């Protein structure tokens, strides 16, 4: 009996079950798509390229080269990683960045660049024989503010590069020093900077191998920097050398390579010695050349104790003669191969600050000193051919011959003035006497650029100013017909010889 009920109940349950089936509406087909935005936008790149004939050719050439080189090697994993880092690294862009810095600077100061390249002062025609100096760029390095410019030297090969030695002449203000090289292509910031322990007193850039720069320091060391090496330290240093100077090195000059093809230079110092240094592999080998004579006022037995401070040194271009100026106001002429001095000139009453041979005439040299005078000499005569007293009370700190004329020279004084003379035009007066720095700034050095008509002057604030010479200061000699003669050493020598013969 119980079995019947479940069956009916089951049937009832079945019958009463709700019909839950439905007929749903069929929607029309719909396309649905999603798109994600590109992930980190910096990694998403656009690539575009063109395929022109030269591009295809270049690519094939490179591909052939690459296949020849790496046919046996496969790229190692480290190289792969390196190349990845390289893509995001700008360290090797230093060259491009420097180029850009120079271009941006010259674009901003385009007027100065134009003046440098093209400007010729037309008003010189109305000024008689006088000329002017046009200020161009000023070279400043903020870390050199407390230092004075102690040396200037143009690179003979790269005519837009010059070296500045920074230090101090004052005994009481000795700190560190710097060797800084600027290029006219980027006056904003130096091209090379080297810090030194002691102040730099002199700089000379090798004439042919302009990556070798010799410096002399206040503490008596000489050092040679190799600009091709990327290091802060000089490549050769005389610090540990037994031949090192015991006084400040006042001048260094490169010489021609010796018989073993070694580079060498000669230095003069406050200890009175002239020493020749030869670069042998990684060492500096010294040779004592000559000692400056001590004046007769000092008793015989003390002559070894006292030393004559050599202040300046210049070598003749053709002969082996050289000139040394001293603190006693004398100039000694000697030869590289003799132990004694050939001649002594009583040049100035006070320290001789500069002595330079004339680049064209083999017998002529110029000297200047603290006694306000500039004197021009013929080496065969004991007294000067020309004497100029520049300014009362202003010591003459440096003088330089112009590379384009045997009769043009320029001098700088502690009053901040530049004096330019052309003996061919006026034998008694300067053609230009111009103050180029602000008050109370002393000018310490001057150099003519080998090719461009500009001069650079260094002052005691660590600044270097470049100035353009106006046409009247660059006059070329004219022949009988009134036409300008082409520049040649013989013409220049003859010009000066003519002037001197009138005085003899």
């Amino acid at each position: 009996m119980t079995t019947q009920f479940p069956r009916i109940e089951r049937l009832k349950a079945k019958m009463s079950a709700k019909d839950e089936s439905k007929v749903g509406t069929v929607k029309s087909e719909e396309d649905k798509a999603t798109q994600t935005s590109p992930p980190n936008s910096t990694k998403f790149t656009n690539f575009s390229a063109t395929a022109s004939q030269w591009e295809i050719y270049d690519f094939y050439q490179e591909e052939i080269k690459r296949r020849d080189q790496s046919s046996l090697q496969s790229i190692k994993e480290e190289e792969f990683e390196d190349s990845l880092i390289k893509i995001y690294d700008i360290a090797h862009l230093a060259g491009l960045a420097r180029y850009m810095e120079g271009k941006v600077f010259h674009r901003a100061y385009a007027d100065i660049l134009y003046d440098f390249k093209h400007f010729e002062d037309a008003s010189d025609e109305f000024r008689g024989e006088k000329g002017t100096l046009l200020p161009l760029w000023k070279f400043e390095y903020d870390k050199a503010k407390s230092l004075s410019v102690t040396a200037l030297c143009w690179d003979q090969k790269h005519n837009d590069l010059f070296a500045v030695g920074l230090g101090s002449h004052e005994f009481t203000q000795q700190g560190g020093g710097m060797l800084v090289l600027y290029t006219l292509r980027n006056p904003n910031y130096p091209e090379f900077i080297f810090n030194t322990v002691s102040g730099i007193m002199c700089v000379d850039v090798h004439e042919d191998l302009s990556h070798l720069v010799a410096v002399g320091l206040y503490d008596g060391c000489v050092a040679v920097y190799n600009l091709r090496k990327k290091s802060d330290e000089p490549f050769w240093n005389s610090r540990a050398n037994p031949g090192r100077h015991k006084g400040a090195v006042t001048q260094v000059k490169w010489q021609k390579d010796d018989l073993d093809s070694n580079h060498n230079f000669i230095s003069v110092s406050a200890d009175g010695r002239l020493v020749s240094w030869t670069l042998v592999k990684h060492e500096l080998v010294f040779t004592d050349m000559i000692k400056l004579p001590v004046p007769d006022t000092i008793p015989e037995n003390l002559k070894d104790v006292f030393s004559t401070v050599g202040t300046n040194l210049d070598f003749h271009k053709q002969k082996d003669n050289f000139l040394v100026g001293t603190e006693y106001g004398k100039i000694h002429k000697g030869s590289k191969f003799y132990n004694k001095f050939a001649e002594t000139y009583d040049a100035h009453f006070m320290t001789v600050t500069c002595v330079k041979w004339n680049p064209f005439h083999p017998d002529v040299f110029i000297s200047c000193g603290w006694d306000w005078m500039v004197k021009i000499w013929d080496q065969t005569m004991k007294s000067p051919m020309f004497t100029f007293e520049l300014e009362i009370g202003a010591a003459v700190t440096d003088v330089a011959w112009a590379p384009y004329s045997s009769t043009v020279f320029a001098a700088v004084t502690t009053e901040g003035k530049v004096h330019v003379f052309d003996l061919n035009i006026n034998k008694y007066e300067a053609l230009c006497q111009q103050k180029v720095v602000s008050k109370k700034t002393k000018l310490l050095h001057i150099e003519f650029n080998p090719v461009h008509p500009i001069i650079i002057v260094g002052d005691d604030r660590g600044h270097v100013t470049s100035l353009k010479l106006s046409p009247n200061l660059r006059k070329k000699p004219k022949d009988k017909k009134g036409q300008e003669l082409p520049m040649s050493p013989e013409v220049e020598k003859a010009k000066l010889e003519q002037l001197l013969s009138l005085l003899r």
Partner: protein
Amino acid sequence: MNEAEKTIKRIQAQKGVEGVIVVNAEGIPIESNLDHQRTLHYTYNFQQLLARTQRVMKDLDPQNEATLLDIQTEKNNILVSTDKDYFMIAMKNSREGP
């Protein structure tokens, strides 16, 4: 900071310089002091202009190639310099500059 970065900072500090962008061989700006949008905008446009310019120079003389492009506009002055695959853009406001 290495030399290249120091130099780029100095360029940015020069009077009147609004922006400096360094773009690498793949066209990605790796250094810039402008906002992102502008950087990409300039990069994209100058990449094309530079490619065009190089094509013109090579067409005129296969040994020669452009090293600096200097564009003077009404409002500013743009310098683009290239070195193999990299290039650098510097923009100066010509009214502000000296």
